[in-house]
């Protein structure tokens, strides 16, 4: 439902936009044509409710008045219709009338307009009331009636012996069939029906072709404006579609587009400037077509301008070529490119040759043309020669380059190959540089290995040299402890001495462990073990220390076994250090959380505690000798986390420290395993 409306709404919005704009243009064109064809008087006539108020009616009546008054009109001709009744009395002549009972006081039923002329003045009565036809009495261009009787247009004397009555029907109707008109070809039609009928016709034309399209167009446009967002989506959809079209196709389509545009411009300009219209309607379709075509182009430009190049045939071909090109070695690629370049110039050269052959016969009689052709031929040959020569040169350099690349790759993998010298002096120099680099790298590597070995020896020696005096210190401290009859303060000093010696010992051992692990000399025996159990055992092992501290340990461990591959002793040290750290550096009375979770084939154990001291930001706690407290007055060696990290990594796990405000989180992540420990059978 929702998706359906989502696709329908934009379509509706877009089509109402298109239809609305088209209808508006259509009605504009109709209005233009109406004004041009009919003129303003006809248009205003069309909107008069009474046909007798139209200018055409007035001109018809004026016409009849003039003709009847001047005697042009004779009884023989008569009027075939009874829409206009007349009574003409001329002195010395019989009365002419088509209605003998018509007098100035007696209008037959159905007639409401009476013009009476008594030889001096014209009076017009409508619905029994007099109508002022002269206005202020002065005739002007815009005066309604063109009858004589104005101050500046007096009634001429030729009318003086005539009395005339003209009555017009209230609603004229058809009296003569077309056959009658043919039969009495000499007969006159009063033309009043025609006035009313044309008013009707113009009115209906304006209604159907102007008013309805205009209202429809405006309302559709308003709708599309209301649904502006949906219309935008339709625009985007259209742009997406037009974006698929290759740029080349779009450019090609510009040719028919410009033809249609030219036609549209031609037609409109002719209509506007010369008032000329084509007899058929078909060419006028070019105007909306051109308009919407332009809209498509603009819409495409608006949304796809940035990636117009991406959707072009040339770009697609280039990409295809680039994709295929990578299969060849770099040198080959260069050669192929220059071949391509050569091929690209071929059509041009071919065209030149055809031109040359075509023009040659006529050039034989024209010195100047012959000279031009000669120069053209020389230039063409030079171009071909240069291309071929460059191709050959490129091929050589490319071969050298490929050889060079092979050597570099070989050097990268450690296979030092002895290749023949290269032709290109620059590449040869580079190859020699590469050889030297290889040699230097080799010696550097040897130096590094030597220094690693020396470092390990140094650590071993230093540790040995530290341990020997430490043995003496511990032994004598012990002897002192056993000494009796010592004053209390001396006993106190001895205790300090003893404790510090113990710490020194643990530190020396830690340093030794870390350096061993760092130099890769740590022996690790991995085997399947239950991570959850290991943590439980560690907690049980550290039970006394935990009890002695003010902290509470909150373990969250899964009930079932969590099998991992690790060195149990090392991993125990990791958690011994982590929990030991937590016990040492936590805020008094706070809680330490030990959590083991299994997620996506990995077991993650985290130790979280709230630090007693503020944790400095941006410190890598797993660096050797780094502690939260830089003053180093606490008990640790500063190696606990470093050991935890190296030991975790030596077991194939990963170790991470996160600090957030005072919350310190250490996490150990180890992959799960399918392996299980072999059952140990009692011997």
């Amino acid at each position, binding site marked *: 439902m929702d998706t359906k409306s989502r696709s329908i709404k934009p379509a509706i919005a877009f089509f109402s936009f298109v239809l609305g704009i088209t209808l508006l243009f259509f009605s504009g064109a109709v209005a233009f044509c109406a004004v041009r064809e009919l003129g303003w008087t006809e248009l205003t006539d069309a909107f008069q409710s009474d046909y007798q108020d139209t200018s055409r009616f007035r001109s018809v009546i004026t016409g009849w008045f003039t003709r009847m008054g001047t005697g042009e009109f004779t009884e023989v001709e008569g009027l075939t219709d009874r829409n206009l009744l007349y009574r003409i009395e001329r002195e010395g002549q019989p009365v002419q009338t088509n209605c003998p009972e018509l007098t100035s006081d007696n209008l037959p039923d159905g007639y409401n307009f009476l013009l009476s002329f008594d030889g001096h003045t014209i009076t017009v009565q409508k619905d029994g009331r007099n109508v002022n036809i002269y206005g202020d009495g002065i005739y002007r261009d815009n005066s309604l009636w063109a009858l004589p009787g104005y101050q500046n247009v007096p009634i001429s004397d030729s009318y003086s012996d005539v009395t005339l009555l003209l009555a017009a029907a209230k609603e004229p109707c058809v009296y003569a069939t077309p056959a009658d008109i043919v039969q009495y070809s000499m007969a006159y039609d009063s033309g009043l029906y025609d006035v009313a009928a044309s008013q009707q016709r113009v009115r209906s034309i304006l209604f159907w072709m102007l008013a309805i399209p205009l209202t429809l167009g405006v309302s559709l446009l308003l709708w599309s404006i209301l649904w502006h967002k949906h219309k935008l989506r339709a625009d985007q959809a259209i742009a997406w579609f037009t974006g698929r079209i290759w740029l080349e196709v779009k450019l090609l389509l510009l040719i028919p587009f410009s033809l249609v545009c030219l036609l549209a411009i031609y037609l409109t300009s002719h209509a506007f400037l010369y008032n000329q219209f084509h007899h058929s309607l078909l060419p006028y379709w070019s105007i909306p077509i051109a308009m919407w075509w332009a809209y498509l182009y603009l819409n495409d430009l608006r949304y796809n301008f940035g990636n117009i190049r991406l959707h072009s045939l040339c770009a697609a071909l280039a990409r295809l070529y680039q994709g295929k090109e990578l299969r060849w070695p770099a040198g080959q690629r260069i050669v192929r490119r220059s071949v391509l370049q050569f091929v690209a110039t071929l059509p041009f050269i071919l065209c030149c040759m055809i031109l040359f052959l075509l023009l040659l016969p006529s050039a034989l009689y024209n010195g100047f043309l012959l000279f031009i052709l000669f120069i053209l031929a020389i230039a063409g040959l030079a171009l071909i020669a240069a291309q071929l020569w460059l191709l050959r040169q490129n091929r050589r350099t490319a071969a050298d380059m490929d050889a060079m690349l092979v050597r570099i790759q070989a050097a990268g993998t450690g296979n030092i190959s002895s290749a023949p010298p290269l032709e290109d002096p620059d590449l040869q120099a580079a190859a020699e540089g590469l050889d030297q680099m290889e040699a230097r790298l080799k010696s550097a590597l040897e130096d590094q290995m030597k220094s690693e070995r020396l470092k390990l020896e140094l650590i071993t020696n230093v540790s040995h040299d530290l341990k020997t005096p430490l043995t003496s*210190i511990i032994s004598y401290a012990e002897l002192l402890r056993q000494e009796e009859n010592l004053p209390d303060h001396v006993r106190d000093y001895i205790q300090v001495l003893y404790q510090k010696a113990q710490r020194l010992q643990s530190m020396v051992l830690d340093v030794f462990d870390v350096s061993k692990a760092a130099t890769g000399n740590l022996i690790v025996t991995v085997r399947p073990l239950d991570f959850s159990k290991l943590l439980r055992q560690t907690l049980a092992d550290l039970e006394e220390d935990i009890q002695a501290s003010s902290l509470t340990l909150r373990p969250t461990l899964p009930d079932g076994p969590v099998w991992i591959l690790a060195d149990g002793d090392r991993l125990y040290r990791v958690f011994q250090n982590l929990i030991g750290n937590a016990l040492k550096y936590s805020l008094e009375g706070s809680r330490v959380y030990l959590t083991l979770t299994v997620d996506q084939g990995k077991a993650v154990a985290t130790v979280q505690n709230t630090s007693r001291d503020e944790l400095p930001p941006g410190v890598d706690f797993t660096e050797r000798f780094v502690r939260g407290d830089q003053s180093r007055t606490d008990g640790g060696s500063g190696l606990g986390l470093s050991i935890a990290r190296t030991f975790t990594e030596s077991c194939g796990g990963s170790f991470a420290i996160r600090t957030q405000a005072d919350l310190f989180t250490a996490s150990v992540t180890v992959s799960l395993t399918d392996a299980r420990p072999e059952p*140990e059978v009692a011997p």
Partner: protein
Amino acid sequence: MNECILVVDDDAEIVRAISILLEKEGYRVLKAYNGLQALELALEPSLRLILMDVMMPKLDGLSAVLKIREQRNLPILILSAKSEDTDKILGLSMGADDYISKPFHPQELVARVRSHLRRYTQLGDVNGPSQKTELVTGRLCYLPDQKTLLADGVPVRLTATELKIVDLLMRNLGRVFPAEEIYRRVWNEEPYSAENTVMVHIRRIREKIELNPKQPEYLKVVWGIGYKIEKH
């Protein structure tokens, strides 16, 4: 009894400290400061045990051990600052009986000396006549019939629960028992908080049988699996 012990180390202060410690325990101490001196003094008939440093001038400790072994069958304990497993293995395979890495805890050293002397002088070696019911591993000897555990021949005072755990582990030397299984078999109950309970007892047993309870040699944790008594 005044058993005679030879202490060999190129560091005179260490030799003196060890001598004082041992003399306090009632032993007689001979001192040597290099391998050659050690070779001479090793022929002393009353000698019962040798403590030998490895890195020494003139003749190093390991060579001295080899030479002494040609003539004497007394316990030789190596004292060394080298604490690598490979060093320990090398020392023990050269004929030494124990390997103590420096810096050592003085009390542990004394305990080890006492342990080796007792086995050498009182219990004799494994090849001698022994009861078939005995379960022996290194310094430890368990007599299942009498429900007694002997460390260096001296009975260890164990509580009933501790004895049950020792009984289980000694009868299955080298086999690893999960805490739950120990709990089930010793307490005859479904395990509840087994790890902690078992660990508490293990720790107490260690204090009674191990020379250095912090680095146990016999009652060991196999991390992530369970507990066992190592076979020596």
